[in-house]
């Protein structure tokens, strides 16, 4: 949903190269949650990250905003290298210019803080001497915009419905007008009419402030609507990426195809008996470490071996 007026020139806002994030798990094994992932996000664009549960989407988001120390790779954000240890200055810039909406709203909100204070977190950190009235007014405006009512400002997270909590997280992330917002399943918990409201809101904010979004989601119909570019993740790898229309009109990777075929239809008579395409990398003999990225067209690229590519593009 890139702002119409934003010309994509100059360098990317975020540039991720060969990102790896490994975790040790019980039993001495290592989970390669993110395994050699590279992508760019331009200023003011929306980059959709989709893929199956456990494919490494949240881990990628958390690595980018530096919640976890990364195993290897490089991350450059707005001219700053943020892959290694952060200087105080860079850390400060990162906190102002990048924010995140978390997947588990309840777990990411402090249960003992009133939501007005949660939403004002960024304001308090960066403008600690702000007039109380002004602070309150800014929070109220933000609450209005995400569809919460002012009378709820003094409540605690447990006193909200699931969707309302998610909007609190969204308000907190947007209040500082960041350059990049990582939205991890930010709208999945919302009903469709609020989803539409929030998506329109995110787009308005993008148009006003030129913010870019890393939009992590599994609802492909919404991702398709909102994103300029899409990357499809599976087992820690990006298996296919490209412009939204390229991905949807010519999906090449069988995993992408199965995802698209699984988008629910709204007709109960059809939906009850419909069975989407099944993708099983192992059964189909696909090993991601054997493939390399092939350009299909323009910005559209696919992780494949030469033979696979030939078989998939028909």
């Amino acid at each position: 949903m890139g702002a119409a007026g934003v010309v994509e020139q100059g360098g990317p806002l975020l540039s991720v190269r060969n990102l790896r994030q490994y975790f040790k798990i019980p039993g001495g094994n290592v989970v390669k949650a993110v395994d050699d992932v590279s992508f760019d996000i331009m200023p003011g664009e929306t980059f959709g990250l989709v893929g199956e549960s456990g494919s490494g989407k949240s881990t990628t988001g958390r690595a980018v905003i530096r919640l976890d120390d990364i195993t290897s790779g490089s991350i450059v954000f707005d001219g700053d290298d943020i892959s290694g240890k952060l200087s105080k200055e860079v850390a400060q810039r990162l906190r102002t210019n990048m924010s995140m909406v978390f997947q588990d709203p309840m777990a990411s909100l402090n249960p003992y803080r009133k939501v007005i204070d949660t939403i004002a977190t960024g304001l308090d950190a960066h403008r600690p001497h702000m007039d109380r009235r002004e602070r309150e007014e800014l929070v109220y405006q933000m609450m209005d915009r995400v569809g919460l009512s002012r009378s709820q400002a003094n409540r605690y997270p447990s006193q909200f419905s699931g969707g309302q909590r998610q909007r609190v997280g969204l308000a907190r992330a947007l209040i500082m007008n960041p350059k990049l917002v990582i939205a991890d399943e930010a709208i999945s918990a919302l009903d469709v009419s609020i989803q539409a409201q929030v998506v329109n809101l995110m787009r308005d904010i993008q148009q006003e402030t030129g913010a870019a979004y890393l939009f992590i989601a599994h609802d492909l119909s919404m991702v398709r609507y909102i994103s300029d570019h899409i990357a499809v993740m599976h087992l820690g790898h990006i298996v296919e990426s490209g412009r939204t229309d390229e991905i949807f009109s010519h999906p090449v990777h069988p995993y992408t195809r199965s995802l698209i075929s699984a988008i629910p239809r709204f007709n109960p008579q059809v939906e009850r008996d419909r069975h989407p395409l099944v993708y099983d990398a192992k059964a189909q003999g696909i090993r991601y470490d054997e493939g390399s990225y092939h350009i299909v067209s323009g910005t559209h690229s696919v992780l494949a071996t030469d033979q696979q590519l030939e078989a998939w593009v028909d």
Partner: protein
Amino acid sequence: MTSERKRILKIRDLRVSFKTANGLVHAVRGVDLDVYRGETVAIVGESGSGKSVTAKQVMGIRTRNEVVESGTAEFTYVGSDGAEHTVDLMSLSDKEMVGLKGNHIAMVFQDPLTSLDPTMTIERQLAEGIREHTDLTGSDLHARCVELLELVGITEPEARLKSYPHQLSGGMRQRVVIAIALSCDPDLLICDEPTTALDVTIQARILDLIIELQRKLGISVIFITHNLGVVAKVADYVNVMYAGKIVEAGTTEDVFFDPRHPYTWGLLSSMPSVSASREERLFTIKGNPPNLLNEIVGDAFAPRNPFALEIDFVKEPPRFEVNDHHWAATWLLDPRAPKVEMPAQLRSRIAQMRQDGGEAR
């Protein structure tokens, strides 16, 4: 829909409020709901409309500032003595409730992290549930845990069993919670947004699993979701909730193909149409839901309803039957009301959907 349909849950006139610093929040304002054996009832509706609060009453889960103002919830089940029992869930003691919850009613909560204990491994949490209603121990118990994780599509179950919740992805946690709920073979399964964190393929798999269990074991399901595609797949009946009330109810076909309440029209119109271009704005229902602190006069949806009649602001609409399995609470269905059709855009969309089998592309 034969005469043998057996009702297992009958909720009547449920009213629940919350005490807050600003006054009483009237979250549920007179809900009636029926669930029949082997059927799936969906509850859809606006965020904050009282779906979770309604479901939690069935589980006897209430917060300290919660006030149940009225309501009954009769649950019918076959006890271990083989005889049929009917109890009012609203007036059970905590102890009686615990007995029912282990064996007859299970719920998958909306926020998966909050229903898992962060300090316990997945295996312990699963095993605890299973032990409550089976005699499995040792390697049999372990095997059952593995089986349950496989059932919900979690790969490498052995390693995952040894993990703690934070070591799993959001969707895996959600599936663990589903596995725990299924572990007790419930008669009634309540799923509150069980698939929101799941990608479409896993979602389809979980839904197939629930449908399959339902066919095999005849369990009944209350399915709370905002994903209308999911509703289309799993539900036999749909209840549409708005501001603490059910405003329309019918079979899934009734509600999808012949919606009558203006809120339902708005809800169906808000789905991103597949052909929507990205320059287009998504349709939204103008305005905000009513403040549940205030007393609501008339139809709660009236201030946001472009088709509202004068009477909508004054008097609460009763239920008008469309047919014997479909009703809506809107004055538009009153014989005296002017004839108002659903928005043309929605009508053509429904026509399109019926015609091309709801293709999403």
